[in-house]
């Protein structure tokens, strides 16, 4: 994707792209259990590749999630403003870019020469503090299943990218998901209970976070096309192992779905494109009868509108029931996804559930965090043995929201609402 963006930016292309890109590399070696030397080696390779691209780049380690502010989890509405030193930085960046593009115009291959004494925007990359690395390792080892690990990794990575984008003033984040990857992701999300949010997870643009939009420009190219392109145009690549490298086929839902889709694709070559076309038809509509998005509650982790109703739906019954029952009991919400006969007894049970987990309970942070998550995230969190290793920004935001909800409920009767009475008093 980077190569295509570079092609688009160069003066030779017919329609020159008019935005200013930067590249972010998220270094995830700690989650995979790699040694520091391996990670430094990979980082050096990536740096060399990014340097030759000539774009401003930032390298962040996954450990930095432990330093994120809770505002990452909030939906911000205005455009991210660049910092104070932005003007000088912008001018420097512009001059650098002009020089890069100048040499690109002269010779066809992008091999720029950075001006002497011009520091790269990143500076020397220091390895992250050991305490954060340990905390990350602890977090990932407290997760029981590989599925939950992969989902957690994706969530943390998204938050980190969002934070980097907001700090440096980028309004859009381009992800490099290809058609095949998105088809696999769609089916995996269905299996994980995130069916309600497919349009956001796999669509072209994703505006859940308000100011920063996530776009997926490569979603029309299959993996095969990308591989051939890379080979024929000798695009430099760097390989890093991930947490699911060399895992057996059934180790996680992601791997299983990948094997399934690719196998089906081998026999029925239209599989991936069919799934992709179907995903294009998904529409992001608010749920019927609900208020506009900013007033309804959002999931803590994935910022989607909460789809768990207290009074209704079989899925909520499963998720809520496991909150109230003692934690030692093996939760099995999927098995409890019943047909119609399960509906009516669920209603009565649920209402008592809701009253029990009311604001007066102080049984620990876990139910409070869980009830702010959407169904898919809840199922994921179940695989975490305890919520303590989670990065502090998640826990503090959860606490803030639950306190706010409690206080709002307590003073509900004292709140003045816009009603006909005010209009009457105003008129009289």
């Amino acid at each position, binding site marked *: 994707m980077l190569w295509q963006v570079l092609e688009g930016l160069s003066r030779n292309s017919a329609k020159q792209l008019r935005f200013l890109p930067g590249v972010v590399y998220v270094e995830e070696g700690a989650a995979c259990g790699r040694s520091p030397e391996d990670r430094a080696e990979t980082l050096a390779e990536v740096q060399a590749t990014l340097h030759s691209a000539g774009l401003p780049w930032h390298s962040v380690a996954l450990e930095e999630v432990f330093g994120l502010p809770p505002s990452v989890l909030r939906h911000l509405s205005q455009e991210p403003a660049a910092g104070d030193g932005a003007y000088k930085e912008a001018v420097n960046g512009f001059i650098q870019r002009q020089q890069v593009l100048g040499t690109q115009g002269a010779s066809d291959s992008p091999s720029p020469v950075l001006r002497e004494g011009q520091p790269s925007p990143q500076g020397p990359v220091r390895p992250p503090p050991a305490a954060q690395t340990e905390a990350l390792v602890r977090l990932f080892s407290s997760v029981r299943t590989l599925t939950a690990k992969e989902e957690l990794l994706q969530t943390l990575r998204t938050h980190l990218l969002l934070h980097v984008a907001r700090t440096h003033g980028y309004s859009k984040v381009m992800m490099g998901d290809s058609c095949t990857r998105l088809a696999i992701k769609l089916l995996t999300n269905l299996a994980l209970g995130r069916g309600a949010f497919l349009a956001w997870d796999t669509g072209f643009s994703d505006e859940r976070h308000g100011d920063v939009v996530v776009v997926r420009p490569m979603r029309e190219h299959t993996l095969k096309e990308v591989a051939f392109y890379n*080979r024929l145009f000798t695009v430099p690549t760097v390989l890093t*192992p991930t947490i699911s*490298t060399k895992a057996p*086929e059934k180790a996680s839902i992601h791997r299983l779905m990948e094997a399934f889709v*690719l196998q089906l694709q081998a026999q029925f070559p239209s599989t991936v494109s069919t799934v992709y076309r179907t995903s294009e038809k998904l529409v992001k509509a608010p749920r019927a009868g609900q208020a506009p998005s900013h007033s309804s509650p959002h999931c803590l982790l994935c910022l989607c509108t909460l789809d768990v109703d207290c009074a209704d739906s079989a899925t909520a019954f499963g998720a809520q029931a496991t909150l109230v029952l003692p934690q030692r009991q093996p939760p099995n919400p999927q098995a409890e996804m019943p047909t119609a006969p399960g509906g009516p007894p669920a209603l009565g049970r649920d209402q008592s559930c809701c009253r029990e987990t009311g604001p007066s309970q102080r049984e620990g942070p876990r139910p409070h965090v869980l009830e702010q998550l959407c169904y898919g995230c809840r199922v994921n969190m179940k695989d975490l043995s305890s919520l303590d290793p989670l990065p502090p920004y998640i826990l503090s935001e959860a606490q803030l929201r639950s306190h706010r909800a409690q206080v709002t409920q307590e003073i509900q009767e004292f709140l003045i609402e816009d009603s006909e009475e005010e209009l009457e008093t105003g008129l009289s």
Partner: protein
Amino acid sequence: MAAPLSVEVEFGGGAELLFDGVKKHQVTLPGQEAPWDIRSLLVWIKKNLLRERPDLFIQGDSVRPGILVLINDADWELLGELDYQLQDQDSVLFISTLHGG
């Protein structure tokens, strides 16, 4: 009776992790009765080059779905897949498109 062939076998996209991290292998296939084709090349790779986890590369008779095979920079589906007969100085490239990306 087929003469010994010299082929270049290359691995990309992560597949080289199964082969000690070495991407390019210049191999000389010994002479044998039947002419060399991709099927027999795979058997040979499994026996001689594959260091670990054969199930991550080979599935049954063929490669695992998700591993692209390019013969002389052309898709193997155009050349007959497993039945393509190897020539001397051919270049076979296995690119893994699985996990990650």
